[in-house]
């Protein structure tokens, strides 16, 4: 009875808090339900952020608007030597089944996920070169090394099992899942070393670079394109003492994609010096300012010694969450640390106090949240979660309210929406 009536509700809230506290979290491998129930789980999260750029810059860029000098200069002044920016968009739809009891039995789930992200780590000099041109760097070397751009989209079909153990002081839950990855598209440019020199009279520009480029077939990269395949694994562990403490550990997307649908990859370690097109002064009937320049430069960079299939590691995420329920009060305190490996994503931290309001069999959690890291820097937001009649769990929120309020001085646009529904 105790398990059935109280713990289930408590677990519902605990897992819900743990699951939805971070704005970026978008799913859990462990279902919070038991007793042979069936559940559906839907989640969508979006995160766009930058370590130094501001929302008004990103917004104008994203809208395709004109970027005035003041906007570019202000953002340039905010940049550090190295910076990050990125977005990720993830969604999932799962079916869960929890057995009547876990003695010798496992719960299981199956579902699909959609992932896409674009991330870049770049130098201030790259930003300035891109948005102000090379003329300010006349007679100087512009260092462009240690930069990376990675754009990827893939889908997953996942199936997993979970099991709950009742311990002396609390509950332990383990989960494990395997996913089949369908690679949609990828572009990865890893610039290990690069510099650009512009001679002071513009007599020549010299680009010295050492980079790896991986890309899939740009003619076939829409949703549903099958450009690669691979596998991934998730693991989770939850512990709660059913009173005040809850601890979660999640490892997700430990896996890879082998891109083999007409991909292209090459390494270029070379110096390209451009000192103008050779012109026949007696026949200037060829256009000078046209795409030929870009084509020629592109050809020089890309070359022709290309290889085919390649393997990408997925951005594996490790997430650790601790929640403290202040005894006898409606208050909670949640702290999270997260990191994505094989990504430019920086360690992410969040702290979120919460307040619960109980209305009959339902409850509403209000969680202000403060975050640092990831693609961005400091952010503040508000999450809300509602438990309705013990069968529905609804969560939504954002962790980037500050950048909406003050787009000139901060960056970030994020949101999540999550729904558990017992069937």
């Amino acid at each position, binding site marked *: 009875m105790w398990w059935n009536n109280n713990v289930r509700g408590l677990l519902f809230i605990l897992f819900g808090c743990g699951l939805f506290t971070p704005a970026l979290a978008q799913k859990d491998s462990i279902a919070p339900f038991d007793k042979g129930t069936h559940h*559906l789980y*839907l989640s*969508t999260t*979006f995160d766009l952020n930058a370590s130094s750029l501001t929302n008004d810059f990103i917004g*104008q*860029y*994203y*809208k*395709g*608007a*004109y*970027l*005035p*000098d003041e906007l*570019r200069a202000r953002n340039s002044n905010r940049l550090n030597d190295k910076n990050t920016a990125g977005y990720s*968009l993830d*969604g999932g*739809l799962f079916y869960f089944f929890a057995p009547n009891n876990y003695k010798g039995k496992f719960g299981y789930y199956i579902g699909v996920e*959609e992932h*896409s992200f674009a991330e870049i780590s770049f130098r201030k000099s790259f930003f300035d070169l*891109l*948005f*102000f*041109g*090379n*003329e*300010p760097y*006349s007679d100087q070397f512009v260092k462009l090394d240690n930069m990376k751009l990675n754009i990827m989209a893939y889908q997953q079909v996942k199936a997993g099992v979970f099991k709950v153990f009742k311990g002396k002081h609390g509950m332990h839950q383990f989960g494990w899942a395997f996913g089949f990855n369908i690679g949609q598209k990828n572009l990865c440019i890893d610039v290990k070393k690069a510099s650009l020199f*512009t001679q002071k*009279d*513009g*007599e*020549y*520009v010299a680009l010295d670079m050492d980079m790896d480029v991986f890309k899939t077939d740009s003619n076939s990269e829409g949703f549903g394109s099958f450009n690669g395949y691979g596998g991934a694994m998730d693991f989770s562990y939850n512990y709660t003492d059913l009173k005040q403490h809850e601890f979660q550990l999640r490892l997700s997307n430990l896996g890879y994609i082998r891109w083999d649908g007409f991909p292209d990859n090459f390494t270029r370690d070379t110096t390209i010096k*451009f*000192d*103008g*097109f*050779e*012109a*026949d*002064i*007696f*026949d*200037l*009937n*060829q*256009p*000078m*300012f*046209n795409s030929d320049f870009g084509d020629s430069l592109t050809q020089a960079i890309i070359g022709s010694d290309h290889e085919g299939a390649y393997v990408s590691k997925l951005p594996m995420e490790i997430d650790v969450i601790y929640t403290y329920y202040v005894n006898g009060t409606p208050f909670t305190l949640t702290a999270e640390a997260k990191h994505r490996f094989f990504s430019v994503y920086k360690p992410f931290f969040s702290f979120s106090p919460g307040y619960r309001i109980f209305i009959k069999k339902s409850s509403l959690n209000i969680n202000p949240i403060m975050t640092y890291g990831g693609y961005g820097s400091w952010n503040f937001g508000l999450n809300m979660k509602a438990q309705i009649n013990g069968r529905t769990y609804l969560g939504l929120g954002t962790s980037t309210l500050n950048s909406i309020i003050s787009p000139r001085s901060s960056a970030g646009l994020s949101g999540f*929406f999550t*729904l558990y*529904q017992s*069937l």
Partner: protein
Amino acid sequence: MQKRCIYFFLLVSIAVLFHSCRKDSSPSWDVDVQIPLIKTSLTIEDLIADSLLQVESGNTVTLVYKNPIYTFQLDTLLDVPDTISHKYYPGLPGAQITAGQDIYNQTEQETFDFNGAEVSRLDLSRGFIAVEFINTLNEEVLITYKILSATKNGQYFQITKTVPAANGTPYHFKERFDVSGYSLDMRGQNLLSSNHIVTSSKAQLSATANTVTLTAQDQFDMLVTFEEVGISYARGYFAQHQYSFGPSNSPIKLFNSIHGGTIDLESIKMSLYFENNFGVDVRVKFKEITAINTQSGHEIALNSPVIGQTINISRALETYNPSQPVTPSVYAFDLNSSNVLDMVENLPDQMRYSIDVESNPLGNISSGNDFVYAGKNLTAYLDMEIPLSLMASNLNLGDTMAFSLGEVDDSRQINSGELMLLADNGFPFNAEVMLIALDAEGNVIDIIIDHEFIQDAPLNSDGFAPDAVRSVIHVPLSRERIDLLYSASQLYVAAYFNTTNAGSQYVHIYDSYRLDMKVTGKFNYVVE
């Protein structure tokens, strides 16, 4: 349960919508770019074709130029008449002609008039024989025409054609036949005469025709002519003729790019050459050779003993080698003691001449063995060797070139900028340059560079310029000027060269001299 499922699908739809709601238009911003645009190098070989240059032992350069003044061609010496034969046979009233019966059948020797020439052989490189026949009978007539003297690959020329019936009005048949490659033996039936060919013409009633009775109105008219005939070879005696040509002008292209200024050459070597490729003795006399600068209007006549002098030039030798069938007879007349230096310094673009030519002045001394080959002519030309050691004053070289910067829409991406011309001049000339943009009709759109100065390379004590000197010319580009340049379709480039820094010293041109030019640009550019 059903309501909940609908609820879920609604949420999934929202998620998909959120995913797909992406902006496709591109942002734009201004950047200041500095890039090299074009580069080019000018050497003396670029200004003057390699074939005209000769590098001397001291690496100085001499201009070697051969300029034809007059060419006496084969068709002047020998003109082929058009008509081969014209036969007219009136019908005999009352005579009956049955199917397959000959109306006429004749073999004849045709005579050509070559204006006094006695031709024994004529090879045709191209041309046609046109056969016209008028049939007044109401039945088909079969005509056969042969030139027994015209052979190709051992076969004589022959055509056979059916001429359709008159059907009330005479049928006019005309058709022409290729005679390229035929050789005409013009020695006649006895092979001892000249200007004769043997032909055979026949007309017979078609084998399927009905018997016809001729009336007074029936006639048979056959005309055979040459059309568009070209001679590849002729042999015989080409007669003694006197020709007088001119005054006529022949172009000199050597100084075409020079539009003004003066040049003072240190020296020149020039000869007047006659090259006789005819198997015919000739006697020539130049009555005038005058160098004309049509821009300045200056004319300088050659003052040399060759003017008015009768020159006998013997015939060429026939080698019977198909690749080099003729060894020409060449006569050279040295003009170095004349005023040729003044003539060349006049920078002529035309040469006016007047010449008398006499063929076979001594008569038929070859016993009918004169010969001519197509393309092997009698030519008079000036052979010049001009060491490029000179003084120049405002020597104006200019040319108009086709030009395009690309689509006009592209110009919208450039707000403003500046072009820089970086000139590393290794020539011991300084230059003022002009660059003018023109529209398609040649109207001036914009003067891009207006008499900007390019420094000359200094000479050392040996009269050699070892180091190039850089000059920089800035061309501001306003928005308006950019639009003008994008609409330009021609560029006029002009340079005024001077050797003033060398004083009164002649400046030698060495083959190592070069002018390297680069155009770089600074642009405020809209990235889209």
